């Protein structure tokens, strides 16, 4: 019988790794991720989890150790945040191109400078093109569910790719809230043992990581791109299987009261829940507005986004990151390009806020919706506008 408990998103992710019977954990502590390696180390120290816990000396080594563990066929897990994700940046590319299904929780955190241990999505955007499957959680239940799902999808022989499970630093990582924990049998029914077909072993010697001369590098990368995009089928299948067993069904793009809405707000991560309250308030005043939030960030859900957008006239995208000197909000630019060739595509308006741990209250989202509509009605030359930042910003031209 599953049981309902109060659990922090970080501890829920650690619990999922435990129920997945992970073999190797290599992690370096970094705020706000520390409760994950701490809980896993405690489980190993008390015999609750039979795994090798490698207390590496930096994040660069954390992921590097994970490469080795995955290469010999061990189920491998790590977690990091902000600067840690940056420090392991070059290793992130290697993990995906060597097709090691490592699962990594990222407690999303702002990037230096200035130093900020608080939450935003700038670390996510820095690893956008690294070829990892990337998925967003909105609450602690999802932090548990999507970690299990990540092992299932990443380790599938048709995929064999690493997965990042993103959840907001502090706003989720440090929040205790209800989580339904399943029985071990249910988890074992969903998640088969990891069988890695190319495990390094003297019985069957193989070479991993040979270098790529010019006459073959391109083919290697295109093969990776094709496999990465094809993984979407298994991603969808994984959601279905998960829902059939655990009763919670996830979608690449989540819609909330968006049916036929003239105006749509788009968010990612835990702030989507606060945004839902703003949507309810607007709906109660008879306004035609709804919410869509990207659950799957990579590979980008182009088709599902277009379906979710439908024939909305206005699409307001809320970004928690700045793309300096570029398209303003990185998510808004992806949305614009995804809808570029649509005949009746909506006007896309870009807002940036929630940087470095700044809260977004319900009123802030109501403002974003109202101002977003006003921008479309009256027109504006600004590339993006800000919310919750002291001092008006103007003259930012796209």
């Amino acid at each position, binding site marked *: 019988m599953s049981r*309902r*408990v*109060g659990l922090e998103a970080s501890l829920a992710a650690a619990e999922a790794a435990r129920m997945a019977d992970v073999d190797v954990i290599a992690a370096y502590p970094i*705020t*706000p991720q520390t409760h994950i390696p701490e809980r896993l180390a405690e489980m190993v120290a008390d015999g609750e989890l039979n795994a090798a816990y490698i207390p590496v000396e930096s994040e660069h080594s954390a992921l590097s150790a994970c490469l080795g563990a995955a290469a010999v066929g061990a189920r491998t897990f790590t977690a990091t945040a902000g600067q840690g994700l940056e420090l392991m940046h070059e290793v992130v590319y290697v993990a995906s191109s060597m097709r090691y299904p490592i699962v990594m929780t990222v407690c999303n955190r702002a990037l230096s400078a200035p130093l900020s*241990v*608080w*939450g935003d999505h700038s670390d996510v955007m820095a690893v956008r093109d690294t070829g990892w499957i990337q998925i967003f959680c909105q609450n602690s239940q999802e932090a548990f569910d999507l970690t299990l799902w990540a092992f299932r999808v990443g380790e599938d022989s048709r995929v064999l790719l690493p997965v990042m499970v993103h959840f*907001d630093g*502090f*706003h989720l990582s*440090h*929040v*205790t*809230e*209800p989580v339904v924990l399943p029985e071990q049998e249910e988890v074992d029914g969903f998640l088969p043992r990891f069988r890695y077909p190319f495990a390094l072993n003297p019985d069957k010697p193989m070479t991993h990581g040979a270098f790529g001369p010019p006459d073959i590098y391109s083919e290697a990368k295109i093969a990776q791109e094709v496999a990465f995009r094809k993984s979407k089928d298994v991603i969808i299948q994984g959601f279905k299987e998960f829902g059939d067993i655990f009763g919670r069904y996830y979608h690449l793009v989540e819609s909330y009261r968006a049916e036929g809405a003239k105006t749509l707000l788009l968010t990612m991560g*835990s*702030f989507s*829940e*606060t945004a*839902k*309250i703003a949507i309810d308030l607007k709906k109660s005043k008879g306004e035609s507005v709804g919410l869509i939030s990207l659950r799957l960030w990579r590979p980008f859900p182009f088709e599902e986004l277009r379906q979710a957008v439908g024939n909305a006239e206005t699409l307001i995208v809320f970004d928690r990151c700045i793309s300096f000197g570029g398209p303003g909000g990185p998510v808004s630019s992806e949305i614009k390009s995804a809808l570029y060739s649509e005949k009746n595509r909506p006007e896309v308006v870009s807002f940036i806020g929630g940087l470095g*741990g700044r*809260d*977004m*209250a*319900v009123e802030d989202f109501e403002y974003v919706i109202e101002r977003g509509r006003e921008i479309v009605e009256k027109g504006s030359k600004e590339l993006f506008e800000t919310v919750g930042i002291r001092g008006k910003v103007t003259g930012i031209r796209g």
Partner: protein
Amino acid sequence: MAGLLEIRWHGRGGLGAVTSAELVARAAISEGKYAQSFPSFGPERRGAPVIAFLRISDESIRTRTAIDEPDIVVVLDPGLLRVVDVTSGLKDNGKIIINSRKSPAELKSEFGYKWPVAAVDATRIARETIGMPITNTAMIGALLKVTEVVKLDTVVEQLDERFGARAKGNIEAMKRAYRETVIKE
């Protein structure tokens, strides 16, 4: 949102304010309610003032922000009253629960609080039950005396689970504070 109670806990680094909020949240959830607890986000330093937040409701809680207008404020250390405005944003029908040797009446006159005040000498209770001036479990008892957000016994289960062998003293601290808390409307 109907039935939503928002509580702000004021303590000091190392005094366990975050733990009290979490224990009550877990108790509420185990009673089938919805709850959410989290610390004021940032590095905690032993001795420095810290804040923890707790929401309890009959419906799922979707707000992902700090609590600016609490229904109840719980103050784990009387020294904070001169240092931090513990009543900032406190709702008109709010309540204040303070660890203090003084009576609610004295506290109300000294600080001019217009809200009902509950007080209990949690420091003394903590010293006599767990041998340390850690007042977080005692102040849970004080909170439950003011509003029965969860049953005492449910919190006892959480204390057993969290403190194991050291649970006895903490349970005693909570129950004594529950008995000795006095309220002045």
